């Protein structure tokens, strides 16, 4: 009987050891609205993330604030903590997350919109893909060159033969 008990006790040890993997909640303890962001994968040489919340400002958009000496290890977890929403808040926010390498070059990017309101807590999972195309949209492109017409018509004189 005692041997059986001992075997149970010994058997519980690895179970206790293996069954208690804790994933920290970045928003734990924050009383206001907060988004717990988990970046599951992305470029290998990521040293910092540049996080932008559209329409919101941040004193330190980089996390970690100090650049580490080694690349970050995925998954990356951080919290986006909001102050109280004002009347301009429309109930959702858009996050833009960019991965920076050791030279501060953007190596990956992801964007997501989250519906959130006062004091809500949300969890967001992202995967950093290739940076978005930095080309301007077509409607913002430069106007076509105002060169002379190919046929060399003199606009002042009007069409020939008129």
């Amino acid at each position, binding site marked *: 009987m005692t041997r059986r008990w001992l075997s149970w006790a010994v058997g519980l040890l690895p179970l206790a050891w293996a069954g*208690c993997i804790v994933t*920290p909640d970045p928003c734990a303890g924050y009383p206001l609205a907060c988004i717990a962001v988990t970046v599951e994968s992305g470029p290998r040489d990521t040293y910092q993330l540049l996080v932008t919340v559209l329409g919101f400002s941040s004193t*330190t958009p980089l996390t970690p604030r100090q650049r580490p000496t080694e690349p970050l290890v995925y998954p990356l977890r951080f919290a986006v903590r909001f102050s109280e929403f004002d009347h301009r808040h429309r109930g959702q926010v858009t996050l833009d997350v960019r991965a920076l390498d050791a030279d501060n070059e953007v190596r990956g990017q992801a964007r997501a919109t989250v519906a959130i309101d006062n004091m809500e807590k949300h969890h967001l999972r992202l995967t950093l893909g290739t940076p978005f195309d930095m080309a301007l949209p077509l409607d913002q492109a430069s106007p076509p060159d105002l060169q002379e017409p190919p046929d060399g018509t003199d606009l002042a004189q009007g069409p020939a033969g008129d």
Partner: protein
Amino acid sequence: MSRGPVLILLLWAGLAPRASQAELPASSPPVGPGHTEAAAREQTRRLVREAAQLMDRGEVAGAVAKLEQARRLRPDPSLDYNLGIAYAEGGRPAEAAAALERFLAGAAPGAVSQDRLEEARGRLRALAPTLARLSVRLAPGQEGRSASVLVDNRLLGPVPVVGHWLVPGPHEVRVTAPQMRDFIVSVVLTAGEERSVSALLVPRPDAAAALIPPQAPPAPVPVYRRWWFWTAVSGGAVVAAALIGAGAAGGFNRRAPGSDLDPLDVAR
């Protein structure tokens, strides 16, 4: 001693079946298998006649053997008388005195003539001063025990032995009982002496242990009564409590792999 009275007596014993039968004790032991009472009586008579013939020829030892055989067949007091005379004739006065004493004790007064009785008494009185008597009993506190008495390695019977006739001189008295050491004592008896021996029996060393009733094998002790059981249970409880406490306190928690970055505080 003249042989004439012996022969006469032998003939009396052998040829007086009625008298002999009358002298038989009421509780005569049964005869051997296949012998009826009449056959036993006839065989006794024949043995006595043969003994008489042997005595007449001077073969006393043979006559004693015949008489002893006849007495074993029928313990008749008349045979004790004849044996007493034969023993005395054969130089065995102690046995003669014992036989005559048995005769006097067992002979029915009406069945034996007074002269015969007087003669037996006379013979016994003549023998007694030349002999010694030995009594053997067990020591106080052991009276109820069964033991056997041997004198000079001859079995006399169970204790107590009272007034056993012995010739004067050294004798070895031995008292034996199961599981006990033999009580052995040497006595030197003188004529006319009456010696009493009290035998104290002591258990044999090897038998002493055997006398102790064998103890039943100890009943198996339940496991919860073993000293180590509750120790193990207590230890297990302490370990379990420590595990539970450590688990509750997060001692076994492991942080998930990955990087935990600084939070970002944003505002309008």
